[in-house]
């Protein structure tokens, strides 16, 4: 079988970051004006924030470069296709956690990328390398990988896991979507830690999580 051409892991078609915190939150406190008052966001961009939902139990608003959604048990801050640096999303999350009266039991650093292959042949070859159709075609007709989730233990002393999802991209033709969920459990769900502790943990884990995600992208795309 011909070798797959090399896809540059540093040249995704799309790249994104999602930070998800699990714990206890008060969604109504996450209104855009609060972020301006706390100097976490520029006043000029808060003034043009698009508030999609504002309710005691869920808040969702968007700026040009981020989307924030808060539930009573979950806070997520995601980049958009117009986010220049993931560090801006990280800083906003850490700043928010330092200033709110919330508690966090676990959080996830999610790195997501879409990589394009040059042809259907190369795209299928990548999927076949991960999930060989020969292991399935004796009992399934034309088997194809729909979603692949693989989980590994954490390489550090923290509780949690590293979970990788690979599936065909539904945004870009002849592409794959890869997400690395770097999940850290800080405390039992019934006894979460004060949110500033989660902010510190996020900042401490940041560089290592970036490196782990990069290793996953490079490892998966290495066709040798």
């Amino acid at each position, binding site marked *: 079988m011909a070798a797959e051409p090399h896809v540059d892991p540093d040249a995704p078609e799309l790249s994104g970051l999602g930070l998800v915190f699990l714990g206890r939150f008060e969604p109504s406190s996450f209104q855009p004006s609060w972020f301006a008052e706390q100097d976490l966001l520029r006043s000029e961009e808060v003034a043009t924030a698009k508030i999609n939902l504002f309710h005691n139990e869920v808040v969702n608003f968007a700026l040009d470069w981020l989307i924030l959604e808060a539930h009573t048990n979950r806070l997520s801050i995601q980049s958009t*296709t117009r986010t*220049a640096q993931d560090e801006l999303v990280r800083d906003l999350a850490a700043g928010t956690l330092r200033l709110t009266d919330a508690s966090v039991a676990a959080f996830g650093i999610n790195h*997501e990328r879409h990589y394009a292959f040059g042809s259907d042949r190369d795209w299928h070859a990548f999927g076949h390398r991960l999930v060989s159709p020969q292991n399935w075609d004796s009992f399934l007709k034309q088997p194809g990988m729909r979603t692949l989730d693989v989980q590994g233990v954490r390489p550090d002393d923290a509780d949690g896991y590293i979970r990788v*999802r690979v599936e065909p991209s539904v945004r870009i033709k002849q592409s794959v979507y890869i997400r690395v*969920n770097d999940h850290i459990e800080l405390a039992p769900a019934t006894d979460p830690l004060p949110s500033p502790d989660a902010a510190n943990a996020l900042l401490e884990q940041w560089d290592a999580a970036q490196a782990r995600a990069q290793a996953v992208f490079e490892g998966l795309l290495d066709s040798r």
Partner: protein
Amino acid sequence: MTTAVEQPAGPMPSSSPLGGQEAEALTLPREIPRGAAPSRTATEVLQGARPEMQSDTATSPPDDEARRLRVRESWEGVVLNVSDDTFTARLQGLKNTSNRLQATFRMTAVSPDDRRLVSSGAVFYLAVVLRVDRQVGTGQRADAELRFRRLPTWTGDHYAAAKRWGESTAQALLDAD
């Protein structure tokens, strides 16, 4: 409105299970007597399914392909000194940390909202980007984005305030007794 890159969750065929640990019964009795819970699947019984905290991203806003931004290079900078209309900074590449240089910036390059953040030691991010503005019909154009870091520190003042609050609350409770 530009959006995240999250993979939209595709529609699940009605006959497929949701997943190993979360599989629901594929069919339910037409009438469930009051007080009776649907029976668990064999998977749930054998695996002793327990709630798992999952921190992966779940939402999937649509992608605004016409207004994507492609980052060519990004830097983290630290302000060295400031004059009336310029500031000098040391820069380090975020992707390639061996890329280091020193540069002088005009204050006009800083957003009015960020100008009061410009001080010696302040951290900022600089990105050289390609904007894909297909709606405008200009194709790609290079631009630079500069934003100052906004990260409050948890200082000794915060601890002191929290300690005073705790002490006063405890005293109030004792007095109430």
